[in-house]
């Protein structure tokens, strides 16, 4: 028995469903494209340069406590450069400062930074300064991996490199701590900063 070509007429799609769908598509495309701009490459590069300077000064200190104190003093400078670079990149791309990808990155990185600050105090009080460099690298890397999950692939890859370096530092002699910090916050930031800046718009 032959069947009619159209046994059932498809229900018409309401016009507002189309409009909602279009708006959703625009928002999702903007979010995905925004990940190209959320992490500042040039900012990362300058943070790396600052870290190398801090490392050079820290390497001349007689004790591990004073070496770490130099890094702690340099951290706000690096943070300020990072914030300035995020703001500048958002302005250049005419993005709201805390656009969705930018907000996700900051919110993902912040808990690791906070945990790192608290653990630094706790480990210092417990006399375990030797593990602090490894812990910093590991936690910063974990934050970048999480934040990078919403960004371009190079960002989580950078985070994994930080974590690998941190894990190695944790089980290495205490005297190598400054070199690990320079390799991570200096070397990795500069290399990946350049890659992000050249490939993802600054």
């Amino acid at each position, binding site marked *: 028995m032959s069947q009619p070509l159209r046994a059932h007429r498809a229900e018409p799609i309401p016009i507002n469903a189309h409009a909602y769908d279009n708006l959703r598509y625009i928002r999702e495309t903007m979010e995905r*494209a925004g990940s190209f701009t959320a992490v500042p490459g040039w900012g990362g590069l300058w943070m790396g340069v600052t870290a190398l300077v801090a490392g050079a000064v820290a390497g001349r200190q007689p004790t591990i406590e004073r070496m770490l104190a130099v890094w702690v003093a340099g951290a706000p400078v690096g943070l300020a450069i990072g914030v300035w670079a995020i703001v500048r990149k958002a302005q250049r791309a005419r993005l709201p400062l805390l656009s969705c990808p930018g907000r996700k990155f900051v919110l993902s990185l912040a808990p690791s930074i906070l945990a790192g600050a608290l653990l630094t105090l706790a480990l210092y009080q417990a006399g375990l300064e030797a593990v602090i460099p490894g812990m910093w690298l590991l936690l910063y890397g974990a934050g970048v991996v999480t934040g990078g999950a919403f960004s371009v692939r190079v960002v989580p890859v950078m985070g994994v490199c930080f974590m690998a370096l941190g894990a190695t530092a944790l089980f290495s002699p205490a005297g190598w701590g400054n070199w690990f910090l320079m390799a991570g916050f200096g070397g990795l930031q500069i290399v990946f900063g350049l890659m992000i800046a050249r490939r993802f718009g600054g």
Partner: protein
Amino acid sequence: MAKAAVVEERQARGTRVRAAEVPALELDRLIHERMRLGIVSALAVTEAISFNDLKKLLKTTDGNLSVHARKLEEAGYIGCSKYFEGRLPKTEYRLKAGGRRALERYLAHMEALIEATRER
């Protein structure tokens, strides 16, 4: 008064737009097409995007992206610059002021449609 003008006036006054007033025929067909809407939306949040990054972002082919990007370029919605990075030729797109205005108009149109159907 033209329907578009009625919609703009009502939106400016904060009053509701009636369904019959939504100017269906004045929809910007150029960016209503999915791929072109994607190109304009992506460029709206970035300073510039290379051809390859745009292709990956929109999950499309070279030919498809070229055709749609050229239409937007001809309309003056986007700008295209070609240069060499080492020995590799690169193509980069940017959103022009006309393209940004077109996207804003399109967004307003979609919002007006939703508003109009909501009050039915």
